[in-house]
C-alpha cells in the first residue's frame, strides 16, 4: 500500500503539470469523488468518459477475454483525455486527466 500522503501529493503534482486542465476521479457509481473541474464539466466528463471507457473495455475484452483495459488516451484537436480505469470489483474507479498538450 503506497503512502497515502504520496497519493495526494501525486494528485496535486499532476494537477500542477504543464497543460493539465483538470483531474477527475470517478467511483464505480459514476460519482466524482475528486475533481478539479467545476460542477457541470465534472458531471459531463463523468458521464461521457465512463460510458466510453466501458465500451472500450468491452472491445478489449471481446478481443481477448483475459485481457484488460488499462489506459485510454483520446487525442483531440484541443485536448488529450487520458483515462486510467480500474475495473476490479470493490475498487472500481476511473482516473481522468485532461491535458492541453499544445501549450508551451
Amino acid at each position, binding site marked *: 500500500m503506497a503512502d497515502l500522503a504520496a497519493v495526494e501529493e501525486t494528485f496535486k503534482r499532476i494537477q500542477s503539470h504543464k*497543460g493539465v486542465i483538470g483531474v477527475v*476521479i470517478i467511483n464505480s457509481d459514476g460519482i466524482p469523488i475528486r475533481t478539479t473541474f467545476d*460542477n457541470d464539466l465534472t458531471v459531463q466528463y463523468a458521464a461521457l468518459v465512463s460510458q466510453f471507457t466501458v465500451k472500450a473495455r468491452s472491445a478489449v475484452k471481446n478481443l481477448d477475454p483475459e485481457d484488460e483495459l488499462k489506459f485510454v488516451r483520446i487525442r483531440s484537436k484541443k485536448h488529450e483525455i487520458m483515462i*486510467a480505469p*480500474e475495473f*476490479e470489483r470493490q475498487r472500481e474507479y476511473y482516473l481522468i486527466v485532461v491535458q492541453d498538450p499544445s501549450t508551451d
Partner: protein
Amino acid sequence: MPAGHGPRVTGGWGPNRPGGVPGGSRRSYRSSNVRRSTSSRTHDMVDGLAPIKLIDEQGVNRTPKPLVAIVTSAALRQARGIVTEESVAGSDAGDGLFGEGRSSAGFSRGWFDSGTATPQEADPQEYQGRMMVPSNAAIASSLAADRSLTAIGGSSMGVSMFSSNRQSNDTAGSQSSSARPTGTPPAASAAATAAAAVFLNEDDLSKPHKVLLQDSGTVFMWEVPGVVVAADSAEGSQVAAANSQYAAQLAARDASDKFTASSCQTLVPLRKHREVQSGTSSSSDAGCQASRWDIDDSYAALERSSADDGEEQLGSVLPSGAVVATGVHSNGYHSSSQQASFMRSSQQNWGRPSNMSAAAGSNRRTTNLDSCVAGAWGRPSSSMRGSQAGNRGEASYSGSTTGAAAAAALLAAAGPQPEPWTRLAGLAEALAVMEAAVSQNIFLPQLLQYRDIKPPLPPSSQPSAVLPDDPLAAGASTSSTGSQQLAVALPPTPGMMSSRPSVALLSSRGAAADAWASSPHGSFGGAGTAAGSTAGVTPSLGGGASAAGAATPGAASAAGGLRPAGSMTPGSLAGAAGLSQLSRRPSQQLPAAEGAGGSRQSSFVSMSSSRLMRGSRPPAGLQLLWTWSCSLTEGMPVTSIAWNSANTNLIAAGYRANPAAAAAAAEAEAAGRPPGSAGSSSSSAGRPATAARSIRESMKIGVGAGEDAGAAGASAAAAAAAEVAGITGGRVALWSLKNQLHPIWTFETKSAVTALDFSQRNPHILGVGTHDGTIAVYDVRLRQPTPLMASTADTGKHADPVWKVRWLDRGPEREELLVSISTDGKVKAWTIAKGLEHSTLITLKRTSKRLTSAGGSSSAAAGVAAAAAGAAAAAVGLPAGSGAKAAATVAALRHGVAGGDRDALISRNTGGMSFDFSSTDSRIYLAGTEDGHIHKCSTSYSEQYLESYSGHIGPVYALQWSPFAPNLFLSCSGDWTIRMWQEGRQQQLLSFQSSNEEVLDVQWCPSNSTCFGAVTAGGRLELWDFGANTLRPVVQHASTKCAMTALLFAKDAPVVVAASDAGGLLVFRLVNVAADRFEPPELQQTRLEEALRANVMKAALSGAG
C-alpha cells in the same frame, strides 16, 4: 338486419334478442316450427306439419333441436303423478298450443347416471348432442350448487328425471352417442320414454345414484352485433328500411297466429376472478453530486475537526450531523441537500466518527451509503467499526441518543483520516502512469530528439541555453541568435567576462568548417560564425588583433545581410565585443607549459587538420532537453549518477543534503551554544581523518569558488563544518525517461550519497556508497527505503567517504564484485552472496616517488588547502586546540606532499578518489588518489602498484579507460586539467585545460573515439574533441552557476546527462558530436590513433620548442 354468422333460416323464426353480445350469454331459440319438427320425429305429429330442415351451404343439417324434450300430454300427465310437487310450471306461456305442455312438462328434472350424453366436440355432425346437453348440464350444475330440489322458475329448460333404470339410461347414452349422425335427439327421446315408462319405487331411494356433471362448450347460433351507421349514408337508408320492416313485423306479430312468444334463458357466464399475490417491489435511488462548495465545505469542516480536540466534537458535532441526515430524509430526492449530506457524512465518517453515527441514527439510508462508501475505500478495520457504530446508533436512537454517543465514543479514538479517495487501491499506480503520460505529452518533442527520431532543432530556434539572469548573455542571445549556441559559454559572473566569450568564439572558429554557409544550419551565419570562419580561413598569424580587425566588418556585413537593419546594431556590437576579447585572450591565459606563439600555431594546425579529417562537418553543439528535477531534490547537490544496466531509460542519482541549509543549521547551532562546546562537538565526532577531510572539502570548494573566496569561502567552510558535524543526509532518486517531472522512486539515506552503481548482472541491485563510509545495497524492486544490507564498523565499513562504487562482472562463473574506493585509502571489493562481505584489494600508500617538476605547483596547491582550512577553522570558530590540530594536519600534509621522500606524520595512506577497471583484463584497475597520483593496480597484488602515473597536482576526481583504445585512459583533476595517459608511459600524452576550474568528472564519448566530455566546478559542461582541437573544447555549456559534479553519456542515445549542484540532472542532446553512424569501430580506432599521433607529436614539438 345485417346477417350474422349462423345457419340460413328459411323458416319464420327470429331472434329473441337481436344484437346479443358474442360469448356473453348462452342463448336458446325456439320457434314453433322447430318444436314441431322435433316432436314430430320422436312422437306423433302434433300439428301434422312436415318437419322443416335447415341445411347450410356445406350441406350440413342445421335444423335446430329443441332444448327441451317435449313429451306428449298423456305421458306428462302420467309422469305428473310422480314428480308433480317438484315440477313448477312456467306461467308465462301465452300460446294456447303450448300452454298445457309447457306448464306441466316444461320442466322435468332428469337424473342422469352418467354423462354419456354430453357432447365434447364442436363437430357439425354432433350438433344435436350439443344442442341438448348444455341445458341439462346447466340445470344439473345449478342443482348441485344449491342442493334444493325446488324448481327453477321462469326458465324454459326441461328437466328429465330418470329412475334407476340404468339399462335404459345406458342404452340411451350409447344411443345418443351412436345415433348422432341421424340427427335425432336420442337423449331427449330416451328420457321421455323412460319418464313415461318407468316408475320409481321406494327401492330407488335407497339405491346409489351417480350423477356426473360436465360442462360443455358455448354454442352460438346467431350473433348480430349492433351497428350504428350515419343516417344520410347509403347504408343508413338500408338500415332504416330494415328497421321499419322489423317494426312492422313486430306490430304484425300480435295480430298474427304465425307468431308465438316464448321465453328463453340467457345465462350470463360467471366471471372468474383469479387472485395473484406478489410482494411489492420497492426501489430506492441514491445519487450524489459534489459541487465545489460542497467539497470545500467538507474539507473545511474536516480541517476544523482535525484541528479541534476529539472530545469536544462529541457534543458539538452530533446535532449538525443529525440535522443533515434528517434533511435528506424529508427531502426525499432533493439532490443538492442529499449530495451535501452524502459528502459531509462520508467525509465526517473519516474525520469524525461521531457524526456518522448520528446520521446513521436518524436515517438508515444515509447509513447505508456511508457504510458502502466506507467499504469502497477499502478501509480495513475502521469501516467495520463505522458500520457497527452506525447500527448501534440506529438501534438506540429511538430511545435515547446514548447509544449513538457510545458509538461515537467508540470511534473517537480513531484519529483524523486522510481523504477517502486516496485509499482507493491501485490509485497510486494509476496516478504514476498518468503522470508519466502527462509528462510524455509535455516532453514529446524532447523525447523524440533524445531518441534521435527527430533531428535537433535548428540553432536559431533553440531555447536559450545561456543564463537567463545574465543580462549580457541575454543581450547576446537576442542580438545574434545565430551564434547563440556558440556563445553559451558566456560567463556566469561578470568578472570572468574577459576570458570566456573568447573561448566560445575560439572554439567556434576551431570547429567551424569552411562551408558553413552552405550547411543546413543557415542561421549560423550570425556574427560569431562569420567571425569564426573568417578567422579560421585566415592562415596568417598576424595576431589576434588583425584577425579581429578583419573579422569585424565581416561580422557586421554577415549580420547585416541576414538581419533587418533595425536589429543589426546590437548584433554587430556584440560580435565586435567578442572579437576584441578574442584578440586579448591568447596573451592572457595560455597554459604556462606552452609558449604563446607555439600554441597558437599548433591550434591553427590542429584546426586545419581537423577540417581535413572531418570534412565539412557541421558544428557540434549541445541542446538542453530537460532537467530531471523535482521539489524533493531541489537544491540538493547531485553527487553521482548511474544508468541502469538493463533498462537504459533508468538513471539513478545520488544526492547530498543542501549545504546551505546544513550550514544554516550549523550556524544556528553554533549561535545557540558557546563556541567551545560547538568545537568540542565537532571534534568529538571522533573520526580520525575528520580534520583532513574537512580540509579536503574546503580546498575543493575553495578552489571551485575561484576568485572570490571571501564570503563564499566562509559559507563553504561552514558547510564543510556542517558535514563534519554529521548533520547531512542524502537521497537516492531513480529517474526515468517516462517521467521527467518526478522520480519513479526516491528514498532518503542517513548520510549523503557519494557514489552509486547498478549491478550488471542483477540490474535491480543498487550499490550505494555514502559520505560516512557505508556501503549499502538496495533492491529497487522492493521499493523499500532500507537497504538489503549495509556495512557497519564491524563489517569493514570505510572510515571515510566512499567516492566511487562500481560493480565488476567477472564472467558467469565468478561472483559479481562491488568495488569501492574511499579517502581512507582502501579499495575494497564486496560480495553480497552471503551477506555483505569484503576484502581489501589494496591500501593506497603515499608514494615516495614524486616528479620534481610538479613539486612547486603541488606545494602551492597545499598552500591553498592550508589557507582554506584556516578559513574553515576561523569561520566555525574552532577553539584553539582544534585549530592547532588542523594547522598541524595541514603542516603535515604540506610536509608530506612537498617533502617527497619522507612519510607523512599522521597518515601513510593516501585517499583514493576514483578507480576504473580495464575492459580487457578485469584484474587490472587504475586508482586515482587525492595527492594526484594514478596507480595501476591488479587485484592479484594487494601491496604494490604495477605502475604509477604522475602529473596531476590535485586530487584525481575521475578516471576512465577509453572504450576504443584499450591502453588509453583519461583522468581529470582538481588542478583544472584533464590528462590523457597511455599504459606504459608514466607521463601524460596530452593535457587539456580550458579554464581555471576544477574538473570534477570526465567521460569518454561512447559514439566518437576522439571525443570526451567533462564537467567543472564552475558549472560548465565541455565536450572535447582532440581530433579537432586540443586547446579548446568543441562545445561548452555554462548552464548554472552551480558546480557540475558528474556526467554520463547515454549508451544508446546521442545524449549526455550532467549532474548539477543545484539538484538537477541536465539532459543534453549532442548535436553533431557522434561519429558517422556507418563508421565501423576499426575506423574510429584508426582515427583515434591518427589524432593521437598528430597531437602527441605536436605536443612533443612544442615541448621541445
